[in-house]
């Protein structure tokens, strides 16, 4: 037994009850727009691992960022972060509220995002 899902074709047929001449490519584009908007809310939850690098403070979360297994992260909102302890277990770590910190190491500055050269 499987759950009831609606395919793009079924969505299109429902749309064509009202708009019989609408092109399927346009409907597909609108569905993708809807999925982007739905992704901002609690619609798909993912857990991913990334590796740390010594003296690197910033880790990129842009649309092209990848995890340790080279999968694209596609992050919208992070709500929990765990860090591996000395036993190899993941322990949840708190979010820093006051982010007005001092960068204490000169090595931290070597990995800051710099402006584009072009």
């Amino acid at each position, binding site marked *: 037994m499987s759950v009831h899902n609606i395919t*793009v074709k079924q*969505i*299109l047929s429902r749309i064509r009850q009202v708009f019989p001449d609408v092109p399927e490519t346009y409907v597909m584009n609108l569905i993708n727009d809807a*999925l982007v908007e*739905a992704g901002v809310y609690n619609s798909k939850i993912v857990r991913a691992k990334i590796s740390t690098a010594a003296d690197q403070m910033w880790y990129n979360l842009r649309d092209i960022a990848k995890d340790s297994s080279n999968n694209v992260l596609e992050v919208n909102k992070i709500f929990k972060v765990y860090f*591996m302890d000395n036993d190899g277990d993941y322990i949840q770590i*708190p979010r820093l509220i006051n982010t007005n910190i001092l960068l204490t190491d000169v090595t931290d500055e070597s990995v800051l995002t710099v402006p584009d050269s072009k």
Partner: protein
Amino acid sequence: MASNIKYPEDSCRWFIEGDDFALLTNVDSSGTVNTTERKSWKAIQESVTDGILLCYYAEPNNVTSLGDVPDIDNSLHLALVDYVKKCLYMDEAGQSQDPNSSAVNVNMSMMHQNRWDESIKKFGMRKRDKTGGSRVILPSDFR
């Protein structure tokens, strides 16, 4: 490979700035505290494979063919129909020469917009919440 940090809940912090995730610590690569009161946090001092586990809301995959099933919970699939309809009705309203017809299309668009907002923004979290059963209340222990 495990890290050298024994208590990450005390020694590590994170925050987000724009598209960047910052990981901070107050210990060095051997797990010894190496910060001061003034300079309380610095970048992680060691390389740890798979050291960070993130839980997050992710972008659903896009659809590319008619046979694709949208990459969100099936309780939210019908909302996609509303999204498409609200866009199409607004398109119709913009193209229509008849003001009455245009007004009707705008109203229909608004109706589907409201249904989309309720399905995804207002009740989306409740709709796909998998928590069930009775709740147990634990009273405070005042001893």
